[in-house]
Structure formats: structure tokens, C-alpha cells
């Protein structure tokens, strides 16, 4: 418990935590509400979104889908950056050395980091929900729509959002431990989340086995879970797998990433 408290204290007071959460909130607001609202009121290029789809995506009752929509790719990338920085920076600052000589077992120290990051992820999803709901109610009120608060189904979407963010967090932690530094971890993570999986999807249109593989890669699984809970209409969101299958893949990835990172942390010398 002491390790979680310690990590939470330092992550809570870390400007990078709030800068990244702030960037994510601005992105979700801008792409989820501001642009859609502008498009609804005189935008010229609505792509393939009908007016009804635009209205539906901004309705307060659909706020769960709005929260989960951006997480498979951009939100996930931000969470991954936060986790990779949180773990990788400790090598450069020498804080891992301080942590591991303070008393806790290495497993407990890692559990502290993971626990604190888990709480930050919950805060991020919670804030996203609150900000998106506020934006949705504002838009609905401005437009004079009849609106209602989201039903219990919103918890399914929020649960999916937490699971997607947790998987990307695990990926970031894994990269931070493997590379023992923030720069390479962040670079590799962003490359994977934003570039590599999309490139593989492009190759997948030519090669069947690659296409099948892309559906179950970390980003693909996240996209499929988002798609399964109604988060359509954003980059990275897919509808190839059932929600349960996608969720199982995400749990598997999270366990593998966190497990591998912990194993490395426990076994490797800290020089």
C-alpha cells in the first residue's frame, strides 16, 4: 500500500500527467463535439456521416460511445506515452535505484507503479466522461434537442474504455522497462500505436493471413472492443470481432505486458 501511495503522490504532482490528460480531453472535445457541431451547422464536407449520425454521436445518452471512440488509437497512444514516461524516466532520474533500496520487494514496487497508473487511468476515463457529458449537454441545449442522460449501458462503454486504456498502459510500462528510458519507449510505442498497425492493415488488404492478424493485435483488439460498444466513426475503431473476444485479447495483452515487465524488473540488475 505504501508503494501505491508513494507512486500516486509523485504521479499526481507530475505536470506531465496533467498535460497529457489535458491534451486528451482537448482532443476528445475537439474531434467529438466541436468539429461535429461545426459540421452540423454549415460544414461543407461531412464525409460519409449523415446529419442524423452527427446528431446521434453528440447526444448525451451516447456519451459512453464518445468516451471509448478515441481510445483505440489516439487516446491509447497518450496513455501509452504517460506509462512509458512514468516508468522509463525513473532510470534516467535514478529514482528506481532509490525505490528499490527503500525496502519494498521489487514485485511490490512494480505493483505500486501499476496500481498508481491504474488509478490515473480511472481518473482519465472518469474525466473524459464528465467532460464529454458536459459538452453533449451543452450542444443538445444549444440545438434545442430533446435529450436524456445515458442509461446503465454507459457502464459497459466505460468498462471497455478502462480495459483499452489499461492495455495501452501495460504496453507503455513494458516498453519503459525493456528500453530502460523514456525516449525510446515513447518512440517505439507511438510508432506501434499510430503507424505500424495501420501499415499492417494496409498490407492485410493484399494478404489474408496478415489481415486476420491485424484484427487481434493490441490496437486491433482495442478497436474491435470500441466498435462492439458502439464507438463507431473514429480512426482505429473496427467491427470484425465480438466484444467478448476483443475483451479477452485485451486482457491477455495487459497480463502479458505487465507480467513480462514485472519479470524483467525482478530479474534484471539495476546498474
Amino acid at each position, binding site marked *: 500500500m505504501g508503494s501505491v501511495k508513494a507512486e500516486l503522490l509523485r504521479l499526481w504532482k507530475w505536470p506531465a500527467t496533467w498535460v497529457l490528460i489535458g491534451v486528451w480531453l482537448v482532443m476528445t472535445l475537439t474531434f467529438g463535439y466541436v468539429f461535429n457541431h461545426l459540421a452540423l451547422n454549415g460544414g461543407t464536407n461531412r464525409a460519409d456521416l449523415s446529419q442524423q449520425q452527427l446528431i446521434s454521436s453528440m447526444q448525451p445518452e451516447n456519451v459512453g460511445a464518445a468516451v471509448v471512440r478515441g481510445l483505440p488509437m489516439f487516446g491509447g497512444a497518450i496513455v501509452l506515452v504517460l506509462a512509458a514516461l512514468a516508468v522509463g524516466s525513473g532510470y534516467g532520474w*535514478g*529514482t528506481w535505484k*532509490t525505490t528499490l*533500496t527503500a525496502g*519494498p520487494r521489487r514485485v511490490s514496487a512494480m505493483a505500486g507503479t501499476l496500481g498508481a497508473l491504474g488509478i490515473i487511468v480511472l481518473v482519465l476515463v472518469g474525466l473524459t466522461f464528465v467532460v464529454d457529458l458536459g459538452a453533449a449537454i451543452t450542444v443538445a441545449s444549444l440545438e434545442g434537442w430533446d435529450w436524456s442522460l445515458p442509461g446503465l449501458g454507459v457502464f459497459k462503454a466505460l468498462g471497455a474504455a478502462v480495459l483499452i486504456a489499461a492495455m495501452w498502459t501495460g504496453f507503455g510500462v513494458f516498453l519503459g522497462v525493456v528500453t530502460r528510458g523514456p525516449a525510446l519507449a515513447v518512440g517505439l510505442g507511438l510508432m506501434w500505436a499510430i503507424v505500424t498497425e495501420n501499415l499492417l492493415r494496409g498490407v492485410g488488404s493484399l494478404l489474408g493471413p496478415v489481415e486476420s492478424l491485424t484484427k487481434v493485435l493490441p490496437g486491433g483488439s482495442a478497436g474491435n472492443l470500441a466498435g462492439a460498444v458502439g464507438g463507431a466513426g473514429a480512426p482505429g475503431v473496427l467491427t470484425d470481432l465480438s466484444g467478448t473476444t476483443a475483451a479477452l485479447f485485451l486482457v491477455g495483452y495487459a497480463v502479458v505486458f505487465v507480467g513480462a515487465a514485472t519479470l524483467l524488473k525482478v530479474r534484471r*540488475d539495476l546498474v
Partner: protein
Amino acid sequence: MIVTTEKLTKRYGDRAVVDEVSLSVRRGEVYGFLGPNGAGKTTTIRMLLGLVKPTSGTASVLGEAPGAPKALLRVGSLIEGPGFYPYLSGRDNLRVHAHRRGVGRTQVEAALEQVDLVAAAGEKFRRYSLGMKQRLGVAAALLGRPELLVLDEPTNGLDPAGMADMRDLVRALAAQGQTVLLSSHLLGEVEEICDRVGVIAQGRLVAESTVEQLRGDSVLLIRADPIEKAQVLIEGSTVHGDVLHVRETDAGALVRVLVAADVDVREVRPLRRTLEEVFFEMTGAA
């Protein structure tokens, strides 16, 4: 014994960074771990704290295996400079560390006071001077009132005033009965504040004893004329150029003998090897 190692070895490939080091630190002493840069001091200390696993050999810290939580909670350490979060204040960094060690806020304030950092405790760590950073590192090491304090090159990078402050701090801790394992490549520092010394060179422990023992017996230098007559009068003396060396004894009695025999005595003084001379002899031979 509070720390013991038996043939402790760390190899990276074919290279032995620490080679069969067997040392012991007694309760209540300030043990100086002396060696040139790259001799294997930090790797040995990292092994004692469980950060690095030995290739072979054994070690015991407070009766536990290195890195065992039971032992680490009773050890305070500062290894190769302080590792703190640059964006947190000194006080918040100590609070983070206190959570990990399971100690309360009152100890944070007491530690800040002990290293004279209360006034700057609210400033961000990144704005601290090197001396303040080192002092915060010592404050962190003191949290939880450890039985053993391990300080690896605590004066590294400090200006002379900072070095003096750090030495005073270690001396004050030692006066309170604190066991300290102090690694350093600064001979004066070790000579001044350590009870016993382990000298490491190229990964091997080449000596372990008190500073006095390391320096060996003191010798009297006598400049007298005629020197041949003086040598005959003083049993066991040896001629070195134009002076005599004799194992230190009652200098007054010697002078009386020489004067009574009509020998001119021009200079009599103790001649002691400095730790520096001993150190270079040992590390050069290693």
C-alpha cells in the same frame, strides 16, 4: 558484524568487476571503502543492496541476504548521487520515500532538519545545488532511523565547503553510534573520518584494517653529524642518504645519548607514511 561478504564476485562476460571480495563491517564503526574510480566500489555496494546480483560468493547485511526487504528497511543508502523526482520539492521527494519505507511525516521533518534543508524543503529538487541534492540524499537515507548507512561517494562533485559539511555530518552521525559504510576515492576524507578501511583495486580487496595499521609503524628521522657515529650509537638504525631512520621510540633519550657522545643533532622528527602513500603502494601493486 553488520555486513560480511565472502568471495563476492561480479563478472560481466570475462571481466571481473568485483573479484572475490571478502570484507566485514562492524557495528558502530565508520568503514571506509577506498579505491580509485572504476575499482569496483559501487558494484560491491549495489550487490550489498540487492540492486545487482553477484555472479558468485555470498554476502550478508544485518543477517539477511542482500536486497531482502527486512534488511533494506534497516539500511539507509545513497548510491552514486541522489535519485529524486526533479519536478517535486525536496519535502515531497522525502514524503514519497517515506511512504515506501513506511515512516511518518514527522521523520521527514526531522531528517530535513538533520541535514539543514528545512528552509529549502519547498523548492523543486531540480533547482537544488549539488550540495543540497547530496544532503537531501542523506536525509532520505536517514528516514526510518537505519542501523546501517551506506554512502557511496557522498562528496562527489561538492565544493570544498560542501565536502566539509558532508564530513561533519558523517562525523556527527558516527558520534551518535551510527554504523556507516562510506565509499570514497578521496584519501583525506577516509583518513579523517573512518575507523577501519578496506582498499579495493581492480576489483580485488587488497587490504582491510585500521588506518593506523595501514600506515604501519612510525619511524623517527634523525639528521646528525657525524652520521656514521650516530648510527653506531643508535641500535637498529639505518642510513638513508644523510639521515638515519629508527623505529619510533623515546626521542628525548636518543637525543641525550647522541649529545653526550658529542654528536651534533640537527633534526629529529617522526616520519609517517600517509594513507596516500600506502594507497598508491597497494593499488599500484594490485
